[in-house]
């Protein structure tokens, strides 16, 4: 362990430029928001698509992950 600590030289850590990060972040945050919506809120307060198939399928996850459900 101490061996690796010695082996790593103390160099400046260059940040990743925002311009390089933005497209990745935009895409992934959008997908994550959609996923979260379907698991956490869909067919409770709002319904897309109508019905309750998604809600019923992920029902226990929604309760245990702490999202409002009933």
């Amino acid at each position, binding site marked *: 362990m101490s061996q*690796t600590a010695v*082996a*790593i*030289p103390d*160099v*400046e*850590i*260059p*940040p*990743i430029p*925002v311009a*390089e*990060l933005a497209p*990745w*972040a935009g895409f*992934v*945050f959008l*997908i*994550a928001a959609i*996923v*979260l919506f*379907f*698991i*956490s*809120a869909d*067919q*409770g*307060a709002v*319904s897309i698509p*109508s*019905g*309750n*198939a998604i*809600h*019923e*399928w*992920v*029902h*226990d*996850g*929604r*309760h*245990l*992950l*702490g*999202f*409002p*459900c*009933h």
Partner: protein
Amino acid sequence: MTPRNFLVRGLIAGFIASLFSFGIAYSVGEPQVDAAIAVEQAAAPDEADGHDHHSHSHADDAGTEVSRDHQSTFGLATGILTVGTALGGVIGLASAFAVGRIGRLRPSQSTALVAVVGYVSFSLVPFLKYPSTPPAVGNGDTIGDRTLYYFVVQGIAILAAVAAVVVAHRLLDRIGTYRTVLAAAGGFLLVVVVTALAMPTVNELGDFPADTLWLFRLASLLTNATLWAGIGIILVGLIGRLYERETMTVARKDLAASL
């Protein structure tokens, strides 16, 4: 270190952590979900509108029924794996942004900070104001309001956390680490507490048994804590190794150039 490096590692961490989280949810949480459903059915054996667990909040279009066996296994796994993997990806990219931008923290350290701040603001704060409720608790008519309240508190907590980190970044060189952390954490706490006091209280428990409620909430807390701790620990390990490898490569190139 590229955004892609971080995203891939975040998704992997999210997926693996979800498996642990599912294990906890299934073994600790499901017995309480079943107990709650038993309470629900004992209380209203023939009330089929709005409170039965198959058709709650959907008296009008209750169509699909999923058996309890499926809800508690594949259904639960679907929910936790998709949320966990998506969160992993987001935390991975947030960590990519944090690298080299937070004081002199190494990539693995800034990643750990992102995971801790993320857990507190995304999961813990909303839980403390609007704790999870088992099936059988909750009025179907207020689901819209309760969903809104939950995400308002969550959104404010996330914004406050981001603001606290930005402020801390500015203060660090001027007042030192200790006072910076105190100021940033204190500011975050102040915003979150004021928000929690200002938001309406939801209490639809009725005479639901306290022991089942407590055990369910504990299970829910553990499910989320396992998910976030898992993502944090796995991602910190993966990013630490990535950074080690890259610095070694740079050091070797420098050495070769100097010869």
